[in-house]
């Protein structure tokens, strides 16, 4: 087997050196029972060529975004990733290193995490950020738990504009932990009255902007109401590129900002791996979940970086830890940082502007269609259409024509009576031809 360096002769010599006649004897000695013998019901190993052939066949049975006009969003966005990003994250020293528990020989990962934390803090308009979470949805649930710890209250209010799967993840965690959530009904047009629901029993209010339906929301009023009632405002985003153009949650008074970082540097990957971003105020530092990288000095007085504040974490605090998280999304965070470094301030702003411009163009063209109503007033690169007909059926029909038209709201909110709603997202990758294909397709099907 090409991945195994030991030869049969090596194995025999090693067994002899430790005093066993066979591996079976060694295993029996170690476990009390002999190893399984015979067929495992699994196929024999394959050569590199055969593995590649097997997986290519599976890959070809998917309609990839590069082969179709593509308008899906709803929490995962298709953006261009510069070639250098993928090259750099495949450097052995990044790809095949572990969590930097030995800082003297892990400064590459650690300095990156320090830079990543700074980038996330800047982008969200917050004071500090952690070294990443699994994804946006789990970061959101962790923010809720952090708010519980900080306020010593156990009831969260979730906006009806929050991504339905984020709400489900938070709801699952809350139910399992014996906490309470109040989930507002789906709020397609960002017209819900959250402020009227805020009282002294809430640990936090969780609001997304741009929200699940694509609406931009001003959070300052909610932030003010939260402050009055001692609750925390948790702001969520799923499209990180939006932060290049819209007012960041930190400037609108959010206490914790969480989001999905996939759209910077990371491919769609059918839903993962992604990278959760988590930022907050400095005064809440010790209740943060996840790894934190901090600056310090070595014995010679040179600047260096270490994982720090580990007394919050499971490997030290065990059942008293702020979270059970251990593994994070290091390499996805690296891809995020490299792409954001390439973009820089002017690049990110321009990228966000191009996304918005393309969305405005698409909206104008869709608005001309009979049987299509656009529900958003303010949006970034995604909005909601009300179609004459069942959106899932229309999307399916368009897919058969090779157009990936968007996400039917019923996919995430089945049974909510929103079957005629379609989420459409557009990025810098969409061309005029793509828009024409979507508009033409919709016209013909509706």
């Amino acid at each position, binding site marked *: 087997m090409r991945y195994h360096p030991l030869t049969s002769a090596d194995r025999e010599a090693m067994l002899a050196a430790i005093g066993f006649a066979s591996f079976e004897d060694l295993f029996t000695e170690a476990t009390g029972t002999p190893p*399984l013998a015979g067929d495992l019901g699994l196929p024999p190993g394959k050569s590199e060529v055969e593995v590649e052939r097997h997986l290519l066949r599976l890959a070809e049975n998917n309609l990839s975004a590069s082969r179709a006009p593509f308008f899906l969003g709803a929490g995962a966005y298709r953006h261009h990733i510069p070639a250098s990003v993928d090259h750099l994250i495949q450097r052995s020293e990044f790809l095949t290193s572990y969590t930097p528990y030995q800082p003297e020989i892990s400064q590459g990962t650690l300095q990156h995490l320090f830079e990543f934390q700074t980038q996330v803090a800047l982008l969200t308009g917050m*004071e500090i950020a952690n070294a990443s979470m699994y994804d946006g949805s789990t970061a959101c649930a962790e923010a809720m738990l952090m708010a519980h710890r900080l306020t010593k209250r156990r009831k969260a209010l979730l906006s009806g504009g929050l991504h339905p799967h984020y709400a489900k993840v938070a709801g699952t965690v809350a139910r399992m932990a014996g906490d309470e959530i109040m989930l507002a009904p789906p709020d397609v047009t960002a017209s819900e009255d959250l402020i009227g629901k805020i009282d002294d029993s809430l640990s936090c209010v969780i609001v997304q902007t741009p929200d699940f339906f694509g609406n931009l929301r001003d959070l300052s009023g909610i932030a003010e109401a939260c402050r009055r009632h001692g609750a925390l405002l948790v702001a969520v985003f799923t499209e990180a590129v939006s932060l290049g153009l819209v007012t960041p949650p930190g400037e609108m008074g959010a206490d914790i900002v969480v989001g999905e970082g996939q759209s910077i540097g990371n491919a769609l990957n059918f839903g993962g*791996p992604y990278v959760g971003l988590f930022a907050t105020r400095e005064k809440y530092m010790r209740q943060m979940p996840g790894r934190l990288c901090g600056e310090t000095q070595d014995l010679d007085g040179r600047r260096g970086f270490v994982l720090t504040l580990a007394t919050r974490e499971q490997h030290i605090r065990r059942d008293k830890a702020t979270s059970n998280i251990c593994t994070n999304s290091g390499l996805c965070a690296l891809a995020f940082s490299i792409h954001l470094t390439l973009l820089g301030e002017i690049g990110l702003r321009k990228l966000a502007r191009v996304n918005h411009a393309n969305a405005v163009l698409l909206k104008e063209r869709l608005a001309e269609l009979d049987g299509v109503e656009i529900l958003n007033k303010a949006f970034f690169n995604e909005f909601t259409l009300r179609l004459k007909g069942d959106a899932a059926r229309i999307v399916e029909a368009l897919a058969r024509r090779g157009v990936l038209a968007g996400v039917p709201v019923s996919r995430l909110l089945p049974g909510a009576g929103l079957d005629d709603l379609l989420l459409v997202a557009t990025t810098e990758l969409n061309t005029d031809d793509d828009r024409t294909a979507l508009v033409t397709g919709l016209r013909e099907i509706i």
Partner: protein
Amino acid sequence: MLDHVHEAQRPLAGGRALDLEEPLLFEIGRTEVSGVDLDEPAPHASQLGGLERKMPIGLPGLSEPETMRHFVRLSRLNYSIDAGLYPLGSCTMKHNPRLNEKMARLSGFADIHPLQPQSTVQGALELMRQLADWLLKLTNMEAIALSPKAGAHGESCGLMAIKAAIAAKGEGETRRTVLVPQSAHGTNPASAALLGFTAQPVPAGPDGILHFEDVEKLIGPHVAAIMLTNPNTCGLFERDAGRIAEAVHAAGGYFYCDGANFNALAGLTRPGDFGVDAMHLNLHKTFSTPHGGGGPGAGPVVLSRRLAPFAPAPALVQDGANLRLVEDGQGFGRMTAFHGQMGMFVRALAYMLAHGGDGLRQASSDAVLSANYLRAALSDLMTQPFGDRACMHEALFDEEWLSGTGVSTLDFAKALIDEGYHPMTIYFPLVAHGAMLIEPTESQPKAALDAFVATLRRLGARALAKEAAAFREAPLHAPRRRLDETQAARKPVLRWTHKAG
């Protein structure tokens, strides 16, 4: 340290041949520079509802060559599996085949959206089905939840299924205790506590493993589950796991097995055969998906027949000729926004296809053999907390053999850095005093194991010769000397600011 270099020969600018210092991005980047060329936005009337960003972000940019240089220089400050032996116990730092990277980047996997019509992603669903099939066969379990994103997330998932099963029996109020051995990963008690369970420690015997008689006394109608790692974090197989499972089951509880150490078992024994109800599998350990400096991982959870109905959404079902993801109304709820770590699924399946069933058995066998080879070669020098006994895929030593030398486990580990090795896991598990946990994996040639032993023996001899002062200075040859972790925690600086820069 350049103690051997004459003062006049010291480099002037901080670099040393191939060792190059690199400033922070924020010290070299400029907000007016970008390494990406973009088309001008089409003329449009902004529809941001007055929420346009007014303040600058302050994000520095770099051109593409500067970006390459910055991150390449950073990368060179890291140790890696590709560069050398990385014997971190409990982390399974095995070879990461590059074919897997190539496969995960096929546009048919990397460039598909999780919410595309399912008719357009049948190949991806088939890949998930095949991955599930391999994992279920290797574990002899009934069902699988693929979505958990890492080991601890898998623990949460398994315990949530257990909690849901208990609630379904109307015992939610009474079964609130989870038994957790003292040697367990910290994630175990943390996961239990997160769900409102009380984690009750279970002591191991003097031989480092649990004994049925000791555990039996703790089992009762208040026990929701026992969480065992098998082999445990001391590298020892829990022989009584099967009997303990029977007793827990008889008392109405469940058996969660932490599968972090499955690299000792794959193809050799099956968790389903020793009574496991739920177990996560770290695809980033046993199945070679790269650790990436701390993630991403993937932690699918296999479930027994008793827990299968409580698996979270999404579930993969055969629907006529097609596969379908059922995304709602499943089991206890939802762990994550989408379907799990697809990129890791591709890599893990590529790994398994390459090995085949027999190759996986060989991998586990070699991992166990290599650990025992190291153990035996070091047993006359270093002390083992539970005696010199056959171990599984990792060998645990403590620091008793260093007592009186003035050299601690930490010093010894730092000295290994100067010898060109990544140290073993130290001070874990907590049940061993000054633990040194060595996991070579199956990826090391015999010559590398022999060289590692020789290095440990030479260092050991130096320690026993009471050259403690030299150890306390180590490392001298790494990019940094020992870092002040106390200062980092006392006055946390978690980001760059103008002032600090």
